[in-house]
């Protein structure tokens, strides 16, 4: 199999390079998603995907049909927030910037198709182009477009940077607000330092203390808390009482409960300001507004759930097995910084999910993402081997020579 994939991937090299150049230069923003979607669909057509479609949200799905109606594998990729105008030191023409996951997933489908090695189930290649709220894109994809497929999916491969290792999850992340409202500024004496900072500080101090006592997950590492922002409205009217907000960014582990995190923050705030009965204290997950079309805005909670995949799951074991057999010394690991669609696919939908791809998450997160085409091709071959091992037809006793 490896020989077939290696040979055929070389046949795709020019196409991969051309498409990588196009995608690297494409400055994706919400107004040109339709153009991006159209080009992706055309590329899938050129690469002879069996079925191609897109949804209202701009998600693109291409299918390589299997020969039996058995379980499917899905490859999911998305767009990162790019800063394409930035010149990278050492960037060469044989490198690709940004969206390596998209190229990798697209050409894994093409390589499977060109190998002519039959699959028992379908390979579903999904691309989520909206970088503002990828989680929503994924949710939309599965809740509407792929709703009927969910039970048939054997496993999902997230085409994210893992340095050719197999990643099995990451911590969750949320942004929450502690809102203190009421007669805040009654005793302020500005020239003596009795001001809003003095009022906020005890709570900030308590949150700092809390951050040092947060739990640790054996696999995912330590939870943490950072104060992201503070906000004070300064008003004081009956209709519009004074209010300050402390906005915290909280990284959490699966053992923690989202509601309990909010309750704990509220309890701490109450312990600080509880003696003042004129104050109301509330906590809530922050929300952001996303424009999905010129007329439609949606409001989303800023929360991404933690997830982790069982390392003994057959999907993981088969993946590690095939990578190691083919001299890709893959280990299991977890993303430290980036967040992925696994929060929804594994966390909510409970579909076995892994991450695999070229590149290092630290480099990609730094905004200096670049990847050699050779590395990309290696990832494409490896992903094809993973797909083949999981839903391909075993060819025991047969090899690619004439019999």
């Amino acid at each position: 199999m490896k020989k077939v994939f290696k040979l055929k991937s070389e046949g795709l090299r020019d196409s991969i390079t051309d498409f990588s150049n196009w995608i690297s230069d494409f400055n994706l923003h919400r107004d040109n998603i339709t153009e991006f979607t159209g080009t992706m669909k055309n590329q899938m057509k050129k690469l002879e995907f069996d079925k191609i479609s897109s949804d209202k949200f701009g998600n693109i799905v291409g299918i390589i049909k299997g020969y039996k109606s058995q379980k499917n594998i899905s490859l999911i990729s998305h767009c990162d927030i790019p800063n394409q105008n930035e010149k990278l030191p050492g960037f060469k023409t044989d490198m690709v910037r940004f969206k390596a996951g998209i190229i990798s997933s697209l050409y894994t489908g093409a390589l499977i198709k060109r190998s002519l090695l039959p699959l028992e189930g379908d390979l579903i290649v999904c691309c989520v182009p909206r970088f503002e709220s990828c989680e929503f894109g994924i949710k939309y994809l599965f809740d509407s477009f792929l709703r009927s497929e969910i039970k048939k999916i054997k496993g999902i491969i997230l085409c994210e940077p893992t340095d050719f290792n197999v990643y099995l999850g990451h911590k969750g992340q949320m942004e929450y607000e502690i809102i203190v409202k009421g007669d805040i500024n009654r005793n302020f004496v500005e020239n003596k330092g009795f001001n809003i900072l003095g009022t906020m500080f005890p709570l900030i101090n308590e949150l700092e203390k809390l951050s040092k006592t947060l739990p640790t997950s054996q696999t995912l590492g330590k939870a943490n808390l950072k104060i992201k922002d503070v906000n004070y409205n300064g008003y004081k009217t009956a209709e519009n009482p004074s209010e300050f907000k402390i906005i915290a960014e909280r990284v959490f582990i699966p053992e923690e409960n989202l509601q309990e995190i909010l309750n704990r923050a509220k309890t701490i705030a109450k312990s600080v300001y509880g003696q003042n009965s004129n104050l109301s204290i509330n906590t809530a997950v922050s929300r952001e507004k996303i424009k999905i079309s010129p007329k439609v805005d949606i409001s989303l909670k800023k929360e991404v759930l933690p997830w982790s995949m069982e390392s003994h799951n057959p999907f993981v074991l088969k993946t590690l097995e095939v990578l190691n057999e083919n001299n890709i010394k893959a280990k299991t690991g977890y993303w430290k910084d980036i967040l992925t669609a696994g929060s929804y696919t594994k966390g909510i939908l409970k579909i076995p999910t892994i991450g695999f791809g070229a590149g290092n998450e630290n480099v990609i997160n730094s905004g200096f993402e670049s990847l050699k085409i050779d590395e990309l091709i290696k990832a494409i071959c490896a992903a094809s081997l993973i797909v083949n091992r999981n839903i391909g037809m075993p060819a025991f006793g047969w090899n690619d020579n004439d019999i």
Partner: protein
Amino acid sequence: MISKKNINILVFNCGSSSLKYKIFNMPSQEILLYGEAERIGTHGQKSSMINHYIGKKKERIKTILSDHNEAFKKVMVLIKRDGKLNKAINFDIFAHRYVHPGNSFRSTTLVTKPVLKKLRKTLDLAPIHNGISYKMIALCSEKFKKKPQLIVFDSTFHSTIPQEFSTYAIPEKLRKKYNLKKIGFHGISHKYIMQEACRFVEKPVNTQKIISCHLGTGGSSVCAIDKGKSINNSMGFTPLEGLMMNTRCGDLDPGTVFYLMSKENLSIQETEEILNYKSGILGILKFSSDLRDAIEMINKDQKAKMAFDMYSQRVKKYVFFYSLLLQKPDIIVFTDSLGVLVPLLREKICSSLKFMDIEIDKVKNNNYNKGTVEISTPSSQTKIFILPTDEEVMIAREAYKEYTHGNNN
């Protein structure tokens, strides 16, 4: 079915990166054109190309062949072009080789929608080879809806192997559940050898007992043919059983597999890779999987001598066994690249068969040039032949027979 008539058959024989084609006029068997699209979907120092031949005229066309679809289209363009220049060049039907249909098909078959559907279910029997052939058959059906297509199966010839030889001694429940039995391969080649050898000796096939040794640089098998029927083949459920081959181990005690897996902590796939891709001549010789490299070094290198001796002894083992099954063969044939081009191999295999009245003429053996040649001594009671195989013409014959008579096999 139509009555016997003069038709042209376009035969396709696909590999994972190649597409061989030949147009035969039938029943004359005249080759109108032939060629091969090479390095399909690959890219390296050597670019993909089509070698196209009409008579003695050869064209070497360097072109991009991104996949079999594109190769097929470009080959069809060449055929159409040649057809405009010479009206004799055209084709009436397609014929394809299909390696392993399992129990689904037992004879050459005309493609229909239900046949395609049934064929689809056989892909997992030989995913690499069946997948490619299926793709080409589906492509021809799509692009040439009105042209009949026939599929010739490589294993059909072996469907007559008696149960006592085809049955594996494993629990019946598992045997039946997975249809595990000796299938046998190279059937198209062995059938061609049978027909041509009988033609050569001018005897009907139903009178001759033949041992056909198809010894290739890739795969090798030996077949016992009794009065027109295959009664045994050295390959089994897959091509891994039987002779030692270029990278395949051939016959092996299954116990060694489990021992190896346990000692080396190997997965099923790793073990398969060892037995299928890293064993055989390559496993012994290390630097090459081609027996001809071993022969070149046979006097200087112990491993080369070992590889050659092992290979030839294993062929001999099957020749002995099949001689017993046939109760003395009338004909032994050597074919395919090693069988035709390596006199030392034939000599070694036939040495010490004299007690069975099988004797090779060393001079004739060493002076072989081309075509079908007898290389046995006048006193040998079994005739020994060198006979180059031609699977494509056999595919055309089978397709022609089915298309014009509809009563193949």
